[in-house]
């Protein structure tokens, strides 16, 4: 799968600086008004309404960039013909998950999902399998006590993992990683949050791997005494990695039945549509 990332940063930033330096992504970003105008010309009337509904200039710009990233990214991966990003049409599935409306071309294999934070927008594209992506600022502060939050919303096993982490900073970061993984799964599933309440499944890291995770679903077998069974079979693949040193990104894809268990290749590109495009990484996740 491929991920296009649009960072809210100045043009000059990315090319020369080594990736080890933790950078502050300035909130001055894609500033050029002519560029923003060009972006807004890509949007449908409904999307423009969506942008206008956002309260405040920053949020409006963020919404504009998100739609721009989706349209330009998807149109790049059409191999048959040149696709004008403006021409893409979108619809929602019965649960509200956005999808491309391919109109007369049936059985198009491309799937996408998008996630954004204040300073970074990510769009993931896959072939043949549904995808969910969630990004989160590593430094995001949780207003509630992390463990209390987890006990309220996460699964018992996940709470146990978090409870063993003594350093509050490390614990907060693990909490956020789990959040992005769980969000990515629900978004990949595409059936709304009610279909997979956070406390009914556990995502655990696979021992001996870096960034690979497993999904375990908890279901109650009604018996006396009631028992909980855990199924950790495949079906969904996860990957967690850093973006721009500032964000965690979690990706979830449905395991392709034809290639079940095969490794997933993830290609990350950083892009400012019409301006620049840069390969960030190519990784294999088992």
């Amino acid at each position: 799968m491929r991920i296009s990332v649009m960072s809210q940063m100045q043009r000059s930033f990315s090319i020369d600086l080594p990736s080890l330096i933790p950078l502050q992504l300035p909130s001055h970003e894609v500033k050029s008004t002519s560029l923003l105008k060009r972006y807004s010309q890509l949007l449908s009337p409904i999307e423009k309404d969506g942008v206008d509904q956002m309260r405040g200039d920053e949020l409006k710009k963020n919404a504009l960039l998100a739609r721009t990233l989706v349209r330009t990214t998807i149109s790049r991966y059409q191999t048959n013909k040149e696709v004008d990003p403006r021409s893409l049409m979108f619809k929602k599935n019965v649960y509200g998950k956005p999808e491309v409306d391919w109109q007369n071309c049936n059985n198009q294999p491309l799937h996408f999902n998008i996630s954004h934070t204040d300073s970074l927008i990510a769009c993931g594209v896959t072939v043949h399998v549904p995808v969910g992506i969630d990004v989160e600022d590593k430094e995001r502060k949780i207003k509630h006590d992390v463990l209390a939050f987890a006990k309220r919303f996460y699964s018992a096993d996940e709470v146990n993992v978090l409870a063993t982490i003594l350093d509050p900073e490390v614990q907060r970061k693990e909490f956020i990683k789990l959040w992005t993984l769980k969000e990515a799964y629900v978004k990949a599933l595409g059936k709304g949050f009610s279909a997979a309440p956070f406390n009914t499944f556990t995502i655990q890291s696979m021992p001996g791997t870096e960034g690979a995770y497993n999904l375990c679903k908890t279901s109650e077998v009604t018996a006396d005494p009631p028992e909980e069974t855990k199924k950790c079979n495949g079906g969904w693949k996860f990957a967690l990695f850093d973006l721009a040193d500032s964000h965690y990104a979690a990706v979830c894809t449905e395991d392709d039945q034809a290639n079940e268990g095969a490794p997933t290749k993830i290609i990350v590109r950083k892009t400012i549509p019409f301006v620049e495009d840069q390969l960030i990484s190519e990784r294999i996740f088992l």
Partner: protein
Amino acid sequence: MASLSATSLSFKAPSIQSTRISQVLRKPSSFQSISFGGFQSSKSLRLQISCAAKPETVQKVSDIVKEQLALSADTALTAESKFSALGADSLDTVEIVMALEEKFNISVEESDAQNITTIQEAADLIEDLVQKKPAA
């Protein structure tokens, strides 16, 4: 003559204002059906139906939303304000719900928590849950 027996009229929060029917219908689990006994005209029906959440509830929800999203104190919020339009993501929404649970001493179902999209919806849900609590 119009006859309206108490048993044939039933309603409860959330609001049944006609302008928001479409919103209620989107969530079948919270849809309440209203049936009336025969009556001739609304003029003869001396019954005031006020189902919107109390203004104080809306205000308290707004305050919590402003705090969670770090909005300036003078940001104008209305009951119709959408969380997403204010920049809230799903993590913010869940944190807002947790703060509302603490403030109003209620417990929100997970599936309801993620589906709240406006201040009005939050206020209605709160009043619904507060009303359902056993009398002290």
